[in-house]
């Protein structure tokens, strides 16, 4: 009873840029561009916060915990709205207006990247902390015993091990950031899901549009998983079997 029409992919898209298939693939590029830029933020802030939370400095740990709790307990969509609608209003008027007048797609790309970056940084911080804490306590003590300062112990002993241990959970966080970039469609970013929705609205081919998007997401996932597996093999510490204790909850 549903009239399938697979040739729709090769028909010209409503925005006149090419075929619908091309239209969706450009969407994938936007998803990846958003995810990669956000990943840079997430990885840098997340590593710093995660590391600081394992240090013996109590108030730094507390500050790090507060940061994590704030970003973890507010839904991504609400955070997206805060970045897009609320922050420009709270900034000084000139700066706020400048942000609001950014031409599309940058007007939604920049808030989306900041939002996803900070949102994911918290998850990265959790993984990095778990990775460092999964190391035997003796490693840190050994560092102190041979006269390394605390920063040196982290730099030469703890972090090189911890980052290898957290590679697999970080891979799944990277996959999450690509999926989560779809939430940016609510603030008008035409990434893959946003373009799928647009294709469905303009071409009325609901299930063709969604099937294509699903397939594109699956293939992207698969490619990243395979690439990361190669990287993990390259970076593995010989003879060391260990993994960060990872709760399977997530999305």
């Amino acid at each position, binding site marked *: 009873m549903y009239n399938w029409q697979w040739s729709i992919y090769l028909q010209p898209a409503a925005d006149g840029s090419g075929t619908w298939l091309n239209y969706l693939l450009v969407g994938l590029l936007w998803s990846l561009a958003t995810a990669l830029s956000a990943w840079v933020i997430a990885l840098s802030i997340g590593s710093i916060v995660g590391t600081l939370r394992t240090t013996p400095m109590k108030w730094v740990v507390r500050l790090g915990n507060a940061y994590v*709790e704030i970003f973890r*307990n*507010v839904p991504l*969509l609400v955070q997206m709205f805060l970045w897009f609608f609320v922050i420009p209003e709270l900034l000084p008027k000139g700066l706020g207006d400048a942000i609001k007048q950014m031409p599309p797609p940058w007007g939604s790309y920049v808030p989306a990247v900041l939002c996803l970056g900070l949102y994911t940084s918290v998850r990265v911080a959790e993984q990095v902390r778990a990775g460092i804490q999964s190391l035997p306590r003796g490693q840190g003590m050994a560092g102190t015993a041979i006269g390394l300062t605390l920063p040196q112990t982290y730099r030469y002993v703890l972090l090189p091990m911890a980052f290898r241990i957290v590679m697999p959970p970080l891979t799944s966080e990277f996959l999450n950031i690509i999926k989560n970039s779809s939430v940016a469609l609510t603030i008008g970013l035409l990434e893959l*899901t946003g373009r799928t929705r647009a294709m469905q609205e303009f071409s009325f081919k609901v299930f063709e549009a969604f099937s294509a998007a*699903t397939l594109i997401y*699956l293939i992207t996932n698969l490619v990243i998983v395979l690439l990361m597996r190669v990287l993990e093999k390259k970076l593995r510490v010989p003879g060391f079997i260990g993994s960060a204790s990872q709760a399977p909850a997530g999305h």
Partner: protein
Amino acid sequence: MFSGYDFDVIQRSLPYLFREGMTFTLTLTALAMAGGIFFGTLLAMMRLSRFPLLNLPAGAYVNIMRSVPLVLVIFWFYFLVPYIAAWIIGAPRPVAVGAFLSCVITFMMFEAAYYCEIMRAGIQSIPRGQVQAGSALGLNYWQTMGTIVLPQAFRNMTPVLLTQTIILFQDTSLVYVISVTDFLGAASKIANRDYRLVEMYTFAAVVYFVISFSLSLVVKRLQAKMAIIR
């Protein structure tokens, strides 16, 4: 920064926000959790089965669900459910199902994949000897599962199941994309009607934070308690 902040609009809209919006959000969360855990457990049992006819489809379902964004799944089901309903009752045309039912089905099916992975870990955390002891006693598969394995698996996994439920509670805000009035949807409607975006969205963020954070404290306490007993 808060000089132009209009607290009054929040106070005026409280009944609407909570009676309409939060009720929807909480009902959806509860139903999706119940259904998700039920189907998730079934999927986990299928995935751990030695019959390819059971474990292959379950594995494929879980992996596909986990690699596509929830927003896309919400769109999928929003359009697909009317066709499935028509197919089930044999109607010639797609049946109007209603936004609420569509949301419940979406979240149940989506979260089942995530709950499945949790339950799989839970079932695998029970030593195999217990299953063998069950068979040695003459219990069949369902008896072993129902009286020995699953009760312990649920117990071990309660903190993780609850953590996933907090995530689910936050995820329900995404029904915004099909214009359903959940808590965030209600806040957004008032925000746009009265042009009070700053007030409504910060208030929504605070409410979500308070609920999720208190639940996560409960989970933490539960975890500490169980760690001692085990």
